[in-house]
């Protein structure tokens, strides 16, 4: 299956983690378009097309959101909750980046609607598997529906 380039929103505050993640994701071409935001607030602005991102529209959401949990301003769980409870953004697949199993246990993300977990450092194979699972390589789904 050909890797269709798609847009990923990466929400990560730690620069080193960010570097590692980007490195992992870019390992395998084609390069995906990766948008990076450094805190939860910005993530929300991005996804909800407000604040700094009023130019965005809901009909062109990112294909995937990679969400770190420990974020300044608004933490990951809150972002997740907001995204998954809003019909406009509900359909966007969200994958949580966890630092440890501990963290995974702490967060019952599934209840909140998270689609998958990836442990940091992100392993590309792992990422690819999940992406496949989430059907991200398929055609862009119509925004509305689901």
């Amino acid at each position: 299956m050909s890797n269709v380039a798609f847009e990923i929103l990466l929400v990560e505050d730690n620069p080193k983690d960010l570097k590692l993640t980007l490195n992992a994701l870019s390992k395998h071409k084609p390069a995906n378009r990766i948008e990076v935001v450094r805190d939860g607030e910005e993530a929300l602005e991005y996804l909800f097309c407000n604040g700094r991102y009023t130019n965005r529209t809901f009909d062109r959401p990112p294909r995937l959101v990679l969400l770190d949990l420990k974020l300044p301003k608004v933490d990951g769980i809150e972002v997740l909750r907001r995204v998954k409870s809003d019909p406009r953004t509900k359909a966007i697949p969200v994958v949580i980046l966890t630092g440890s199993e501990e963290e995974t246990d702490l967060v019952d993300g599934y209840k909140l609607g998270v689609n998958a977990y990836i442990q940091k450092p992100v392993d590309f194979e792992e990422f690819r598997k999940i992406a496949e699972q989430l059907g991200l390589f398929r055609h862009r789904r119509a925004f509305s529906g689901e």
Partner: protein
Amino acid sequence: MTIGSPAQAFSSRRVALLLGTLVAALGLAVLLGWVFDVAGLKGVFPGSVTMKANTAAGLLLCGLNLVLVSSFPNPRCKYFLGCALSLLVVTVAGLTLSEYFFGWNLGIDQRLFHDVAASVGTTKPGRMSPTTALSFIFVAIGLSVRSLPVPFRWQRPTVGALGAATIIAATMTLAGYFLQSVVDYHLWNYNGTAVHTAAGFLLLGFGLLALTPRKQGFTWSLNAITTGGFAIGIVGVLAAAGGSNYLIYRLQESVALVGRTQEDLKVLQQIDAGMASLESGQRLFIITLDEQALRQRSETKVTVQSYLSDFGKLTVNDPSQRRRAAELDQMIAQRNSWGDQTITALRNQGFQVAERMISSDEGTALTGSIHALLAEMSAEEYRLLAERQEKSSAASTSAFLALPLSVFLAVAVLVLALFFLDAGVGEQIRAEEELVNVRERRRSDQNFRALLESAPDAMVIVDTRGKIVLVNSQTEKLFGFSKSELLGQAVETIIPHRYHGRHTQHRDSFFGDPKVRAMGLGLELFALRKDQTEFPVEISLSPIETSEGTLVSSAIRDITERKRIEQGIQRLNEDLERRGMALEALNQQLAGFQKLVEGVRDYAIIMLDAKGGIASWNSGAQLIKGYTAEEIIGQHFSRFYPPEDIANGKPDRELREVARLDRIEDEGWRLRKDGSRFLANVVISALRDTNGNLWGFAKVTRDITEQRKTEEGIRQLNQELKKRGSELEISNKELESFTYSVSHDLRAPLRHIDGFSKILVEDHSAELSEEGREYLDLIRVSTREMGQLVDDLLDLARVGRKDPVLQLTGLDSLANEIISALKRDNAGRSIEWKVGRLPFVECDPGLIKQVFTNLLSNAVKYTSPRKPAVIEVGTSTQDGKPVVFVRDNGVGFNMKHADKLFGVFQRLHRAEDFEGTGVGLATVRRIVHKHHGRIWADAKVDQGATFYFTLGTSESPEAESPEPGPEKQPIEVRHE
């Protein structure tokens, strides 16, 4: 025939035996007397009749026979032997008798020995007297009859009769001897029997009688046979008497005749003499012419004449002699006339004429013919005399023989008749007795019936077949049957059906051993009425012997009422017993309580009377308050109160309150005997009787001074502990969150180091030298190690924070999960997995999974040198509780260092040999302890190790907290 009692028979036998022996001895002795010619044995008195040898032999044989017959046992051969003896005796005696009767001489008399003819008695020497012979016959026959193996009806009477006859004969002989010797009265010719012979027969006769013992004596009665017999006997006696008389008469006659003949002879001689005297007288006259002579002559003539007439009288019956007498008379008359003529001639014609007449032969011729005639007559007389003497002798013999014989026979027949009489009498008597019995029986029957009727209980008489033969009217009333309905019926008619089978059995067993008894001792008996209702009864049984057999008389009593009363009594008894038992139990309890109370040393338990006086005291009271029982009983309890309380009236107030509230509890100060105070916890209860009236108080006092102090101390301790506990908890929480955040925050830099070094390796290793690459590898390795350590520490912290969430888990599935993963991860190695059955336990599955993970991966790790590695998981039991174990055949460890096994960061192996953080087992232990279990290990160096753990045991886990508790028993502190 009635047979005497065995004892009687026995003694009779003995008597017979004895007698037989005596007689035999007698016979033997006399025989010996004959052998050795001892006169004293042969004839007891000198010159008296001797016992003949045959007699002695006969006595011996009869004596032996008697012994034989009277002795036990009775084999056939005995009978035949006895008969042989008897036969011998009878033969000899019979032959002797026939000798007498027929005048034979068979030569048996002197067979054995020669007898002296001089011995008086029998006609022939050596011959036993007829009486003896007859007695022998009697005895011998009697013995044989007695010993007949087959008894017949007249046996005993016969034997008895014969014996009696013998006795009588012997007695008569002995009587004769007695009279002869004492009174010198010749009773009769005791027929030549020796005195000891008679004695012997006497004994034999008694011996025979002894063989016929009778229960009763002789009884008299009459019936046809016996009358006939008796009559015959009497006739016999009379005949015998008559016969004897006749014979005696004849004897007398013949003797008289002989005498007469002798008289005749004498007369003839006298006539002859007279004639001669006449002759000479005449001559004398002629010569002397003496008138005297003449006178003499005429006297003589007269005398001769009288003689002649005498003779004529004597020879009345003899015609030839009478003829001659007449002739003689004529001749004498002639002669006398010639004599007269001569004398006349002399007177008238003178002497010469007379002389011429005398010298003429006429006178002489006349005298001569007279002589001749006289001689003829004498000769005739002599002949007659001889003849008559002969006859007389024969008659004498006959009389001699027949007289006693006939008497004997008569007596024998008489006695026989007596016996038959007796026998027949017996019959008669029996018939009479029968009659009397029947009458008696009828009378007793009537009495019996009357008795039966009068009995207050129902009397039922039953025979051996179980049929009712008699009932009384009470039975009718009790059972509702009429007499006719019951008589002849089976007794089971009045017995409930369910007992029928058993009753038949019981009936039979009763008849098997009939004796008076109550029926069914101990059993509940029921009887059945006509209307088929049952009622309880009491039955007593007694056997009745009747001529028709054994009957059973049963007295049946209706005990319904009694039963009712009995039950009532029983209930009462049970009640009483229960009460008694209850009382006993109460007493026991009381005793127990008293002991209990007495023994209590920590509490003063005392009783007060209604006014507060002390009634009882226990050892605890003594210990606490200091008084002894003797000192304090009777005193008022207020003396335990401190003065201020007494002043307040507290004691009485308390009592009033108790009376009101029934129970009060108070804490306050009390006084001991020594005046010291103590803090007391006092409970006073009211004691009431069944009517609710207060009769006393129960007071329990506890010295709580110490306790109070202790309580205070504990409270303080608790508070401290609480504080410490919360402090600990806070610090624990801090520690945990510290651990958590440390671990967690440590992860990020690690992650980065690892990530970037990986990029270096992946993207930039070409730019590095080999050394550079090596160092880079080492960096990565270290990073990973640290990551592992952090993970383990995080694990440990996590485990410590949470309490296990218990659920019933199958350890099987947990273990197998991990084993599968391990198998996958260690596919290259040869590992033998042995998994036993693991139990289901209440546990936190996640945590226990960790346990298994740790233990099993350890096992895998430490068995790496082994090919194959053997890892076993299973359950064993220790102290009845399940223990899970993980066993491997790996390198093991030295048990010396076992205490370090579960310590954090403690390792017992070198890092280069086996990787590991040293945290895993600590975590495992934490988890196991959180489950209130135990974990321990057992190992040998190079021989593998086994790890055991239990979950949820009742044993308290080893204290993890290193903090030592207080010296005393730790008091449970509960977290709020």
